[in-house]
């Protein structure tokens, strides 16, 4: 090895010490900022500006005012939310007992049942909705277009989203807790109320979130099962495609987002046992 003064000076050139793994995240950060954050900012931008004389953008709330002034639109928003809430409740009423009963079975049966419930999710949602249309056509065509049909369709599509989180949480409850409860004198009902239910709340809230949001904003189900009924999703679509009125569409989208954000925050506040988001140990 050549040890000369030149050698040492090359060696002394200190490389900037960079943690080797910071580069890994860079493609994602680019994606995050360009395809997720900027679009959101753009929505806000379009919702609150209006183009004056071709080039000049002025801040305005005109779209929002327009929306709230048209009672028809407010009704559409209210209808969408009401339908979504009803769907969510029905999903909960069906989904929770279903998840609970599944956990009572043998592990291999559980796996099969979960698979059966979730496998249809892999078939295109439009196709499944169309299938229900076909069934309604067969049984009673007059039902098409009613709230009933829409709710049936939504429950059908979103039920697995309610069942899965609840099942996951229920199956993770340490069976020893049931023993402990029995040991301390708890009847089956009491055990359910005091042990099972509280521990499963996070799953329930998860399920509610995963059903409420898409149910409120779906475009597909109102179209096929509602006889092209206009709900909030369709409304936004119309504003963008039919009238090219982006500002208006963006404003509606923001109102929708805000309402949903409020609902989500509300449900998150209720859940004190959150796991995934909380970064406890560094």
């Amino acid at each position, binding site marked *: 090895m050549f040890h000369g003064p030149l050698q040492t000076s090359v060696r002394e050139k200190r490389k900037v010490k960079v943690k080797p793994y910071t580069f890994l995240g860079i493609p994602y950060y680019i*994606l995050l900022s360009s395809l997720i954050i900027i679009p959101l900012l753009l929505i806000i931008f*379009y919702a609150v500006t209006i183009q004056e004389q071709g080039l000049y953008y002025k801040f305005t709330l005109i779209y929002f005012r327009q929306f709230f002034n048209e009672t028809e639109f407010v009704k559409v928003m209210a209808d969408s939310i009401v339908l979504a809430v009803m769907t969510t409740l029905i999903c909960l009423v069906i989904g929770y007992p279903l998840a609970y009963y599944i956990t009572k079975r043998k592990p291999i049966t559980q796996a099969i049942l979960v*698979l059966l419930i979730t496998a249809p999710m892999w078939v295109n949602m439009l196709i499944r909705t169309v299938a229900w249309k076909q069934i309604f056509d067969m049984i009673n065509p007059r039902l098409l277009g009613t709230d009933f049909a829409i709710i049936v369709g939504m429950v059908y599509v979103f039920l697995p989203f309610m069942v899965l989180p609840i099942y996951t949480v229920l199956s993770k409850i340490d069976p020893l807790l049931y023993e402990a409860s029995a040991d301390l004198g708890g009847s089956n009902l009491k055990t359910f109320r005091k042990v099972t239910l509280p521990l499963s709340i996070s799953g329930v809230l998860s399920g509610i979130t995963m059903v409420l949001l898409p149910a409120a904003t779906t475009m597909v189900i109102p179209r096929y099962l509602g006889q092209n009924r206009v709900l909030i999703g369709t409304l936004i*679509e119309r504003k963008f495609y039919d009238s090219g009125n982006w500002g208006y569409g963006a404003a509606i989208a923001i109102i929708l987002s805000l309402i949903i954000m409020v609902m989500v925050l509300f449900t998150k506040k209720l859940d004190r046992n959150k796991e995934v988001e909380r970064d406890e140990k560094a």
Partner: protein
Amino acid sequence: MKKHNNLLSGIFILLVLLFVYAPIFSLVLFSFNANRSLTTWGGFSFEWYGELFRSREIMNAVVWTFIIAILATIISVIVGTFAAIGLSKNKKLFRNAVINLNNIPIVNPEIVTAIGLLLLFQSLKLQGGYGTMLLAHIAFCTPYVIITVYPKVKSLDPSLIEAAQDLGATPMRAIYYAVFPQIKVAIFAAAAIAFTMSFDDFVISYFTAGSTGTNISIYLYTLKRGIPPTINALSTIMILVVTIVVTLNFILTRKQYKEV
């Protein structure tokens, strides 16, 4: 009493399953219908399957759906997995911020994400088409990859990477030898989720495909004259494929349920 409960709960489960599979049966049944009706049975026939493969429109939509789904899955899994690994090494504050931002497209209604991307592409004067659709799919698939892979990465023993380096592996090789084998399962799960989300997507594709792009969902939605039974045939094939894949997967992983 327990047997009583078991029976009741069993019936309940059965009813729900009937509800879940009724439309599926109907779809499959009527795909073999000899006449065009979707409500009356006219005899057994493979006619619609032939129609299906002859229809260039439908086949085009199916092919493109696959192409986009496969590409989007590959890219989002790579980007997402690297991001998950990189994130686990970052400072807590930064990590939490990114995770929260990452959750935005998951929590946001699809239509909002779709509009945002539409506005983005239009502002950049990008022509709507398969390119923009692919970008959009990557955008909404990657967050799902991250929420699937990241928890697994976080739960790994940090000293494994150190051990690999201690034994002479460069940082990148350490990831390859020490981390990947452990998160393989999560990566596969993430790929499955990403593929499903992309394959099944409607809203975001609809808004970002412009006038040239199409996939199965867009094709269906924009049908002018009602749904032909060829769709039933397509659905049946899809259901068949899904059944085979799911059954195979189940058989291969059956062991883990017996060990309890």
